[in-house]
């Protein structure tokens, strides 16, 4: 449509990129700057990187914030906890979501459309309220405890809230639709005759699944896993509402450093390290995956 950039098109093309540079990349550069600044009392609570004094230009830069973070197992553990939470819940979402997506995609068209609507409804409804629902359910006086007491499995309410199992449960519950919908998107396009063909040629159901169905739904698996893994790595709300002090996560640590301790340089250094430890692997994976796809096409 547009072969060469004309003058009137320049603004059309560059406005959104200017916006992203200004409100996404400049802020990131800023937290990098603050992360290598020295903290001090006052507003803002860090010393300027460059200052002019009698001795000339002074540079007040430090790697101390990073050294502090990486010498304290408390912070390192929070990164590891976040990574393991993201891995565990992505895997669980995949294991629970795949059969659901598969059977919804294989249903008759009339039923399928209704089931699809039923998958989209939780996807659209408020994230916060769905986490809150588990807080209600898992209470000591909550419905799950009542049922367990009623059928005689336990005699007294057990505390199911404020531990990392409740966090995993909450994450799997809230992110499950994010896994199911992309999986469904690929499985529904998939020609069911391929399964019959594979069966007719004598393949066992397991082999049909591993050699035919799984490779063809791989893009859906990757898309769904990304949609779960990326937000869970920085998740704050679910650990705050359902979690306890047995495991602390990266998102909550940044929140507390900033809002409770008011230590901007440490919060910024945590965020920068978070980008390197948690976000770079995702970007590298996506680049490798794109290359792999490109080669196979």
């Amino acid at each position, binding site marked *: 449509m547009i072969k060469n950039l004309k003058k009137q098109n320049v603004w059309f093309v560059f406005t959104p990129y200017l916006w992203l540079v200004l409100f996404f990349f400049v802020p990131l550069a800023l*937290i990098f700057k603050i992360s290598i600044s020295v903290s001090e009392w006052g507003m803002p609570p860090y010393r300027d990187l460059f200052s002019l004094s009698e001795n000339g230009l002074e540079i007040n830069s430090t790697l101390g914030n990073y050294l502090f973070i990486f010498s304290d197992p408390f912070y390192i553990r929070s990164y590891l906890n976040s990574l393991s939470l993201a891995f565990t819940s992505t895997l669980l979402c995949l294991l629970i979501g795949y059969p659901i997506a598969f059977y919804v995609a294989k249903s008759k068209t009339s039923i399928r459309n209704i089931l699809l609507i039923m998958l989209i409804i939780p996807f659209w409804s408020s994230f916060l309220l769905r986490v809150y629902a588990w807080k209600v359910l898992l209470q000591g006086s909550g419905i799950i405890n009542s049922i367990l007491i009623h059928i005689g499995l336990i005699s007294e309410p057990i505390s199911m809230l404020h531990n990392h199992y409740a966090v995993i449960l909450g994450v799997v519950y809230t992110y499950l639709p994010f896994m199911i919908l992309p999986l469904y998107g690929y499985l529904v396009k998939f020609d069911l005759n391929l399964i019959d063909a594979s069966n007719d040629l004598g393949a066992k159901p397991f082999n049909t699944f591993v050699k035919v169905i799984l490779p063809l739904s791989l893009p859906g698996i990757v898309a769904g896993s990304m949609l779960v893994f990326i937000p869970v790595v920085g998740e704050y709300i679910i650990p705050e509402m359902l979690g306890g002090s047995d495991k602390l996560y990266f998102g909550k640590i940044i929140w507390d450093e900033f809002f409770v301790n008011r230590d901007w340089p440490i919060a910024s250094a945590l965020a920068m390290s978070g980008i390197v430890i948690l976000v770079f692997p995702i970007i590298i994976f996506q680049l490798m995956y794109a290359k792999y796809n490109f080669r196979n096409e």
Partner: protein
Amino acid sequence: MNKLFFKILTLTIGFSFLYFPILTLIAYSFNDNKRVMVWKGFSFRWYKELFHNEQILEAFYTSLKIASLSATFATVMGVMIGFSLTRISKIPARPFFIFLSSSPLVMPEIILGLSLLLFFISSNHIIGFPSSKGQLTVLISHITFSVAFVAVIIQSRLSSYDKNIEEAAQDLGTIPNMIFWKVTAPVILPAILSGWLLAFTLSLDDLVVASFTTGPGANTLPIVVFSKVRLGLSPEVNALSAIIMLIVILAAISIYLINRSNIKK
């Protein structure tokens, strides 16, 4: 038969898991007791209190306003990005622009919120803008993380449909502006609508970024709800959940019916 049984069992368990918590919450919203979990009797008491709760009503209005503005701006810019990446063959340094437009997708919201807040504070120090934190700063932040999502949707629609239609229109002598309005726009309209809807729900649902960038007079609904349920339970929030679920279900059903009548045509 065995297979069918397994299918029905999987779907029943799966959908029960998805719906049981929501339905319980709705059931308890009719409980006439301040202690959420102890059933006392059926009443609409919490709905009445909800509709007299100024704080929640105001937050709801603020959220709707920010979400619709944010979705509109994000959609306009998302369409621009979608076009520039799929339709301009000679855009210089294309991978760089792809990187620019997609990196917000992988950024944890907590880092996004922190960096935007520090940015607003510094820019207020240096150029005096924004003069204070509030609805404007929340709006800017929401636009920033929504643009990338809309761009992805528009891009996939634009790259999957046949460019030859546009070229055919060109060969038939249609002027470029007409091509856009008569050929391209109708094709990408569904993508624009779903992009807008996604940006709208992203903004309506956001708690973390809004908590960082909010200021006086800009408490969005998630911020108010979170402050109520962070430490305990709130029967008013139960009633609010039921109402939101009702709205979502009605919207989903109407979209389903519209789709069905479109397919029949």
